[in-house]
Each structure stands twice: as C-alpha cells, then as structure tokens.
C-alpha cells in the first residue's frame, strides 16, 4: 500500500473535492522540459501526477498523446528516463503521489519485476498498465504488490457490475474508470451517463474512483468533479506542449484553470 496515495485521497475527502490527476509523458517535450513541468504541477493545482512511460506504439492513445510519446521517444525517453525523472522530482517533492502509467510492452522491455522494484525505489506510488488484461494483470499485480506498489484496476464502461467486481476485487490504490470508450482525447463524454455509471461503480468498490479519458474542457471537469474522487486530464495538457503551439508555462496555466474549476465545483461529498 502506498501511504502517500492514501494520505492524498484522505486529504481530498477532508477538503470535500475531487483531485486533479495531471498526465504528462516522461520526456515530453524533452527531459529537462518535462522535469520543469513536473516540478511546476503541484503548485499549479495537480493533486496527483500520472507519468506516462514513453511507448513506440501507444495504440490506446489519440493523436495528441501519441505525439507526446513520439516527442518523448525522440528525446531518448523510456522507462529508465521516467524513473530518473521521478527521482529528480522527489528531491523537491515528497507529498504528491506519482502514478506510473504505461503500456505492457514498455514495461516488458525494462523487465517487469525489476520495473516495480526500481519504481518503488524511485518514489513511484502506483502503476497503471493501460493494455493489461486477464492473467497477465493478476500476475503483475502480485509482483507490483511485493514492492508495495498498487496496480490500479481499470473499470471499462462495457464491463458492468460483474466485470467491475472482477477487476477491482482485493485491489488497492484507486479505480480508474474510463469515461468515454475509444482512444484518449476523444469526444467529450455524456456527463449524465458517466455520472450514473460512476454511481453504480461506487457500489461495487470502496476504493476511490478516478475518472479519465475524454476530460479536456474546464466545463466537463467542473461537471464531473462532483461525481468522482479524482479526474485525470492528459490530452489537454499535451496539446499545450506541442512545439510552436504552446509552452510549459502555458500548460501549467491550463492546469491552474482546470483545477480552479474543479475546486469551485466541489467534490462528490458536496452534492
């Protein structure tokens, strides 16, 4: 169990608001730029950081995050660099949890067992493998747990209660609920539909529920903040890092804006 993650969700509950999980890809736009971004995120309003492990084939991601992966890979980004970044981040920050989020093939390249050991040592608080399923997932969860790292279960809309029970059984950390099916950065979700689904999911699990995929606008984030314990935002940050179109301060300013909207909306306890 990650004490840092538990403390953060406890704090959010006490403050009566949903947490903002800011997703950035390790090495985007490059190593130093990424570290500057990571160090700026907590002050900008990010409660938890999701650090993407650069992948050559990020097949579940839309064009924007795919671009982020390409930039990161071009900058020499891989799982090693991601963990180096976490170590550097931890030099100045001990409070903000970091969730390593990646594809199975990236982790396999690092060799999985070593990854969880190294990640724990670097200061990673949880791991999320976006394309893990079935037996692999269970085997990996055991390995991750051996190093004190919760492997975050994913609740897909189409699975319904039974699948959610299956995938969240004896899990720890939090549950990642996919807001809209399809790739990251897709169409904005139907807020009412997602809200109803999150309510059903909450009856199946006692873990905090984080909702992601498709949350790009301040409006959507404000509306869903009342339904989840946390919201993950990635595409809207990455598109502000595209060279020539945005900048690190611009991305941080957006984080401040969306975090402000979520704080204003209040959390699930405020309804």
């Amino acid at each position, binding site marked *: 169990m990650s004490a840092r993650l538990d403390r953060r969700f406890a704090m959010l509950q006490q403050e009566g608001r949903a947490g903002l999980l800011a997703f950035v890809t390790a090495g985007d736009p490059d190593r130093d730029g990424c570290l500057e971004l990571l160090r700026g995120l907590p002050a900008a309003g990010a409660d938890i950081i999701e650090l993407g492990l650069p992948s050559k084939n990020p097949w579940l991601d839309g064009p924007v995050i795919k671009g982020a992966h390409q930039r990161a890979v071009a900058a020499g980004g891989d799982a090693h660099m991601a963990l180096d970044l976490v170590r550097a981040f931890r030099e100045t920050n001990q409070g903000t949890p970091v969730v390593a989020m990646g594809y199975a093939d990236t982790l396999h390249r690092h060799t999985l067992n070593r990854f969880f050991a190294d990640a724990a040592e670097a200061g990673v608080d949880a791991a999320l493998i976006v394309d893990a399923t079935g037996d692999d997932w269970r085997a990996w969860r055991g390995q991750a747990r051996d190093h004190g790292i919760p492997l975050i279960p994913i609740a897909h809309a189409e699975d*319904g209660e039974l699948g959610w029970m299956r995938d969240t*059984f004896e899990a720890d950390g939090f549950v990642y609920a996919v807001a809209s099916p399809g790739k990251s950065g897709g169409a904005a979700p139907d807020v009412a539909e997602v809200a109803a689904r999150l309510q059903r999911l909450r009856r199946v699990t006692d873990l905090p529920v984080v909702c992601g995929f498709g949350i790009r606008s301040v409006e959507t984030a404000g509306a869903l903040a009342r339904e989840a314990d946390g919201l993950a935002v990635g595409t809207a940050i990455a598109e502000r890092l595209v060279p020539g179109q945005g900048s690190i301060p611009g991305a941080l300013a957006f984080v401040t804006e969306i975090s402000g909207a979520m704080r204003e909306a209040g959390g699930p306890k405020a309804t």
Partner: protein
Amino acid sequence: MSHQIKYQISEREMPKQWYNIAADLQNPPSAVIHPGTMQPVGPEDLAPLFPMEIIQQEVSMERFIDIPEPVRDVLRQWRPTPLHRARRLEKALDTPAKIFYKYEGVSPAGSHKPNTAVAQAFYNKNEGVKRLTTETGAGQWGSSLALAGAMFDLEVEVFMVKISFNQKPYRRAFMESFGAKCFASPSDMTEAGRAILAENPDSTGSLGMAISEAVERCVQRDDTKYALGSVLNHVLTHQTVIGLEAIDQMEMAGEYPDILIGCTGGGSNFAGLCFPFIGQMMRGGDEIDVIAVEPANCPTLTRGKYAYDFGDTAQMTPLVKMHTLGAGFVPPGFHAGGLRYHGMAPLVSQLVDEDIVRPVAYHQTETFAAGVAFGKAEGILPAPEANHAVKAAIVEALKAREEGKAKTILFNLSGHGNFDMAAYQEYASGNLKDEAMNDQEMAMALAGLPKVPEPVAAE
C-alpha cells in the same frame, strides 16, 4: 453434455425422508427453557402452539424422518427444484471456480418457504386444527403458509412486519388470493401490538413483534395453532429436502462442494441446503467451508451474543440458546426483510459456535450490486435476501481466481426477486443507502438479555 446448465432429478427421486442434524451433532442441542420456571420446556408447554407431531420432531434425535405422502404430493407441484451450474457467471468473473446454485425460486410462492409450510399445514390439519396464525417479514413465509393453508383447507392469519406490508402490496394480494388474512404489525388487534404502538406509534415493526402478535392470537382459541417459518429445529429439518436433492444433483454433475453458502435470517434456507452436507462432513466426509451470510445491519452471527434469549419482542416465547442481538433490538429498515431477525436458529448458532460454520456480513448496496450482476449473467433477479448469498458466492469465486484454484462453490438461491421490484427500483435510482448500525441501541438490547442459569443439558 459437456455444457449442461441444469441438473434435474425426477419426482420419483425426490427425498422420502428429511434429515435431522441433531442426530449427528457432537454436543447435544441446548435445552429450550421455560421463562417462568427456568426449567427445560416439555411437550405440554408447547402443545398450545404446535401439533404433537411437530413437537416430537422438534426434539427428535432420529437422523431421518419420513415425509408423509400427502406432503410429498404437494411438494411435487414444483419439486425437485433444479440445480444450476452458473456457467455464464463463471465466464463473466473469469474464474476457475465452478459455481452451482440450487434454485428454490421455482416454488409457487417464489422461495424455499413452502417446503415447511406444506408440512406444517399437513400436521395441523391431521390433528384437527382449523386456523393457523403466523408472522412474516418480507412476505415470503406468509405467502407460503397462505398457499399451504389453501392446499389443506386451513384458515391462515398473517402478521406482516409493517415496513414490508407497505413496501410490498403484491405480497399481501398474493396471500389474500389464497384466502389468508394479512395484517400490518404492530397492529391494534393484540395486546402486544397495542403496547408497542402506545410506546412508538410510528414503529415500522420487526419479526420479533409480529411473532408476539401471532402467538397471542393463537393462544386465544383452541382450534388455532401457530406456525413459525424459520428458527425452530423442525422447520430446518423440513427444509433439508433442498440439500438432500442437491447431494444427488451434485453427484450427477460429478462435483462435490468445497464451499457451501446460504444467507441467514432465521437460518432455514441456509440449513436446508447445508445441513445434509454438514452431516456428511460430520460423519467423516470431505471438509467443506460452510459460509452463513447475513446483513451487516442485522449482524446476529457476526456481532451478536451466543446466549439464552426470547424469540419475540413481547417475551412470550420460550428461551432458546442462540446468537442474538437482544429481543428488544429493532434492526434499521432495509430491504431483505426476511433477514431482519434479532435471533438465529439454535442449531445454526451451535454450528457457528463450534466453528463448523463461518459467518460473514455484507452491506445492502453491495448485495444488490451482486444481485443485479448475477441477474445480467444468469437471467434471474434474486430476492434481496438471496442477494447476500450471491454476493458471498461472487467473493469466493474471485478469491478462487486470485488463488488460481478451481474450487467448487454451491449456494442456495433461496428465492426470486419478482416481488421486490420496488427495492430494485430504489437501487437503480441510487436511493438505496446503507444505514449505519446504532451500536448503542444494540448494546442496550444485549444488556437486556434474560439471566438464565447455565444448563441443564438436554437429554
């Protein structure tokens, strides 16, 4: 037939005898105590309430008791009930566990309750009784006794816990269609009911109160006896047709349970499925993990005391040794009305006390989530009571998945939820809540337990 779903035995193969677990217990069952004399009750004490044949069964130490032919004839209208292999549930859970359930919802009243209602009605009719009184929580027992009364031409009066009476108008219509009279309890028809209403006019009722009313109505007239739908030994014995059939059906399936699960309110459906298997285990058979599932808001087995207590609120019944939350305890109003009882079948309590049965408790909303999920996979929406067993079965199947073990799980799907749509509607709309237990109230009810000199083993 590698993908068989239902394992059916023929009417001819329906059990001809009930199984009485008292014969196989290591320690004798605790004596039932008369609250006036503090001595074990004798048949004459029970005679105003029950026919002689039932009283004899209550204290019988015979392992098998013949089922009268007229009882088997009525039971045959729906028995033997099917044993299902929950293949679609297994697939959805991606579990190596083999999940079986015995489906008692095929009875005309929709639950296991007619198994004993028919037998009790028969014995009463046989001894010249004209009228039966009883209580009902969710309405399943009242419906079953109404049905049995119609089969054997007996008048039936049912005191239905008020919260259920209001939540389930169709249960009342069902009972009245079979000619029974149904009253919301607490009512103004009895001393017990009037006393409760005087103290709390808004009382939502409880099984304990309804029992007091039914017993009071019974002792007022010589031609009237009382029928209890759970808790007592004879009731549990009548329910063993479930487990006896399941033993044959599991054999057809080529499996034997590693884990047995039943929900417990008074204990009868749990006992019905599990006692015959526990008997085999106690006679040297394979070890089984036997799980009794109760609501977290009426945690008799997991948080109650194993002590002598009254079976009803007005303290009219004899004292029995059981797990109890105190006869004065009124559980918060939740939907599994059949599980809202302060006490427990003494035989089930004894098995829990002897570590042969493992009790667990779940909250209402998680059991409904399990029930809805089960319905989507298997096509049957369970009764809210049975949702507790479903929840435990899913948990055990997922544990088996974690451990990578192909465990065989058998649970009792004691009834369907077709009369419980108001509850499902509330669940769907998100209005179903888990009320917090009032620990202080529970402690007070437990502090009021009667003082009984430690016994006095039964002969």
